[in-house]
C-alpha cells in the first residue's frame, strides 16, 4: 500500500482490513498513536488523514492508499503545541495527549473557545477537565512567531495546497 506517512512516501505491506491503528503501532512501531476504546469514541488514536482528524481504530488500512497520514511522530519533538501542552499541564497522564494535539492541529490557527470545544468533543480526557488544554492551545497560538501557522507548523509536506476535499473515510469523527 503506497501512501505518505509523516511527509515521506512509504510502501507498507499489511492486510488491507487491518486497522490503521494496528499497522501504525505494530508494523511501523509508531506507538504514539494510542488505543483507548477501539470504537471511535475516545479519540486517543486520532491521526490526520489528508489533514482531517480520524480515529485510526476505525479505518481499515486499505483506505489509506494514496493519502497523506500524519501521526504524532510526524510533528517532531519541538512543535509549539507539544511544549504548550506540557508547560500548561494540558497533559496529565498523557495518554490522550497525542490525539488531542493532532485534533487541535486540524482546527487551524487561533480557534475560538467554541471552535475548540466543538473540535475536541471527540477526544476524551479524564484527567484535566479540559480547562488546561484550552489554556495550552491559547498559549501555543499566542506564543508562536508571527506569520507561522500553527495548523501546519511541523507537519512536513502536508498537502496544504491540495484543494481536493479530504476523503472522509468511514472512520471520520462524528461532529456534534
Amino acid at each position, binding site marked *: 500500500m503506497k501512501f505518505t506517512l509523516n511527509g515521506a512516501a512509504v510502501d507498507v505491506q499489511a492486510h488491507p482490513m487491518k486497522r490503521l491503528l494496528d499497522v501504525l503501532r505494530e508494523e511501523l512501531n509508531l506507538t*504514539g498513536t494510542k488505543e483507548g476504546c477501539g470504537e471511535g469514541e475516545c479519540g486517543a488514536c486520532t491521526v490526520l488523514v489528508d489533514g482531517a482528524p480520524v480515529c485510526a481504530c476505525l479505518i481499515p488500512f486499505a483506505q489509506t492508499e494514496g493519502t497523506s497520514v500524519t501521526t504524532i511522530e510526524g510533528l517532531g519533538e519541538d512543535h509549539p503545541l*507539544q511544549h504548550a501542552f*506540557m508547560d500548561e499541564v494540558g497533559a496529565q497522564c*498523557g495518554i490522550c495527549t497525542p490525539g488531542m494535539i493532532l485534533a487541535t492541529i486540524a482546527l487551524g490557527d487561533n480557534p475560538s473557545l467554541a471552535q475548540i470545544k466543538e473540535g475536541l468533543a471527540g477526544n476524551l*480526557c*479524564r484527567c484535566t*477537565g*479540559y480547562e488546561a488544554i484550552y489554556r495550552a492551545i491559547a498559549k501555543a497560538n499566542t506564543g508562536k512567531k508571527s506569520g507561522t501557522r500553527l495548523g501546519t507548523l511541523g507537519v512536513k509536506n502536508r498537502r496544504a495546497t491540495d484543494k481536493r476535499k479530504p476523503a472522509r473515510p468511514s472512520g471520520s469523527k462524528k461532529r456534534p
Partner: protein
Amino acid sequence: MSAVGTNVKRKDGIGKATGRTKYADDVTFPGMIYGRTVRSTIAAGRITSVTHAYDAAGFTVVDHRDVPKGGRNLVALIVDDQPCLVEREVRHVAEPIVLLAHADREALEAAVVGIEYEGGPSLRSGRQAVFNPLESPTVLKEFTIEKGDLKRGFDSADMVVEGTYRTGHQEHVYIETNGVIAVPDNYGPLASLGVTGGLGMANANGVTVYGSIQCPFYVEKALKVMLGPNYTVRVVQTETGGGFGGKEEYPSMLACHATLLALKSGRPVKMIYDRVEDMLATTKRHPSYITHRTGLKKDGTIVAMDVDVVIDGGAYVTLSPVVLSRGGIHAAGPYRCDNTRIRARAMFTNTPPNGAFRGFGAPQTQFAMEVHMDRISSALGIDPVTLRERNALREGDSTATGQVLKSDCSALRVLQEAVRRSGFEDKRERYKGTKRGIGLALFYHGSGFTGSGELKLGSKAAVELTKTGVRLLVSSTEIGQGTRTMHAQIVADAMGIPYEDVEVAPIDTSIVPDSGPTVASRTCMVVGKILERACIELREKIGSMTPASYFKKHGPLRVEKTHVPPAWLTWDETLYRGDAYATYAWGCNVAEVEVDQDTYEVRPIKITAVSDIGRAIHPAMAKGQIEGGTGQGVGFGLIEQVVMKNGAMANSQLTNYTIPTTLDTPEMDIAILENPFSEGPFGAKGLGELPIDGPAPALVNAIRSIGLDVREVPATPELLLASKRSRQHAERHSDTLTYGASVGA
C-alpha cells in the same frame, strides 16, 4: 530560588506530547505472547465442566491448578477471600476461570472454551444470587460511630427532617485500560540480549511484571502470596495512563494472571484489557443508599444527626471495609453536632467487587449530606448559606468521631469565598422562575490513611546523592497527577538545591523503598513529608558541601526515613473514636445549571470551586487536580450511569457509558486557599480526592432550586422527569412528600 509554590516544568519531559513515552501496551519483548482471560457468564453457581474446543497447538492454558505448590490461589489484599482463578464456586459475572496465551492474537480470540455450570445457591449467601445490597443477607463490614446522646438530641429538637439518598456505580474510564506484561527470569532470548527479566538470571523461579499500576508493592505482595516462597518477584511501573483508584487493587489480579501464563509458557506474556473487558470485569465506585434523620432548632442549629449508610461491596471483600470507613467518617459532613450516630454497612452482592475510586466513599456520603442540607434549608425556610454557616465546623469544634479541629479548619472560609466569588445570593434571586438553577455544596476530605492506618503502613522514602545532585526514591507512582514533579520540588527546597538537580528514581520494587500505595490523597502530604525529613538529615550530613562535591569526595550517601504520624494523633479502631485524619482539605462548590424544559437535560453552565489545600506545591498542577476532579464529579452527578443487568454491566462500552466531553464540561472558576497544616511538607494537605466530593451535590442542589425534587445521582433526564411527575402527582394529592421521605413535625 524556591521551587515550591512555582510552576516548574514537569519531570515528565516532552515525551507525553511527542508520543515517545512508553505505556504498557507500547512495550514489547522478544518472543512475547499474548494472554486472554476466560470469565464466568453467570453470577452464582458451580462449574461442572470446562472443555477446550480448539487446536491446542501453540496455546498455553492455565487454571487454578497451576498456582505453584507453596503458593495460594488468592489475590492477597485485606481479607483472603478472592481467588486468583475460580476453582468451583462462581460468585459474580466476569470472574476469571481459565487463562490462555498464544503468539497470534486472532487465534487467541477465536479459541472457544466451554464452561458448564450448575446454577444454585451462592455459597456465601446460601440463596440465589443477590444484586441489591438492601436485600443482601450478608454483611461484609459494619460499624457505628456514636457521639453524645442521640435521644436527648432529638428530644431537644424543634423539627426533624428525614430523607434517603442514592448514588450509582461509577466507572473510572482512565483512557489507558488495565494492562501488564509478565517476564519470566529464565527466559533465554532476553538473557542473550542483555535484558534482565528480574533480580538475577541465576534464579530460574522469578518473574518481573511491568504494567500500568498505582501501587507496585500491592502487586508485589499479591504475587509473593500467590507464588509462595520459592519465587522472586519484581514489579516495574510503566507510564500509567490514568488511575483514579481503578489501578489500586485490580492490577494485582491481572499481574497474577500474566505471571501464571509466563511461568507456564516460559515466555513474556502481555495482557492488555480492551475497553469492554475493563469495564465489565474491573472495579467501580460503590453504589450507596443513605438515610438521614436530623433534629434541628428553629434557627437551623443541628442538635441530632442519625445517619444510616449502606454500600454495595460486590462479591469479595477487596477494599470495601476501608471505603466504608472513609465514607462513614465523612457522612456527617463538615458540620458540628453534639449528638450523632452514624451506622455504616457494606453488603455482599453477586456483582464484580466494587473498589477504590477517587474519594473512596466520601463522595457518596457527602452527596447525601449536602442534598439533605438543602432539604433542611427548604423545610426551615433558612437560606442554604446561612444554614451552613450556622453549623459549619470551626476551630475547637469536634467531628463525629470526636476529633477536635485545629487552626487548619477552613470550612467557613471556603464557604464564604465561594459564595462571594460566584455571586451566589444575587444569582439565586435572579434565577428564580427561570430554567436556570444554582446550588452549593460544602465538603471536606481527610488526608492520608484513616486513623492509625499511616502508623501501620510505616511508609519509607529515601534520598541519595548523585554526581550532579540528589535522587529521590519512592514507590509513589506518577499516574498523571504530577508525583515526580511535586516530590522533586519538595526535595529541591528541603535540600536547598536547584529543582533541575533533583532526579526521580524509576518505580521498580527492586530499587525503591515502599512509600505506601498511591492513594488516599497521601502522596504529597505524607510521602512528601518523609522526603522533607530525609533531606534535612542528608543536608546535615553533607554540611556546607554541595551534594555533587560531597559525592565526588566521599562517594554515595543515602538517607531513608520512615513516616512518623503526628504525636497527638489517637485513634480507637473498634469504637471509631479519635483523630480520624491528621488533617482535612476543605472545599465549597457552587454549580449553575440550565434545565431544558422539554428534554430535562441538564446543562452545567459553571462551577466555582474554592479549595483549601494547605499549600499548593505546584499551583498549575494543583489547579489541574481540582479541574480534573471537578470534571469527574460532573460526570458522577449528571451523566455517568452504569446499567447493571443480572449482575453485569450492560453498557460496558464508551458508546453507551459516556463521560464528560468538552461540550459537557462547564466553565470552571478555581480558587486555591492556603491555610497550612503544620505537619505537612511546606504546609501542604491532601488534594487529589477533595475536588470530586462537591460537584454532584452542588449540581443536584442547583437542579432542586428549580423545583425538581432530585435525591439521586446520576441526575439523568429520566430521573428529573420522574421527579417532576411525582411532584405533580404529589401536588394533586395535597401531599408535600415525595420519594416516601418525611419532612416534618
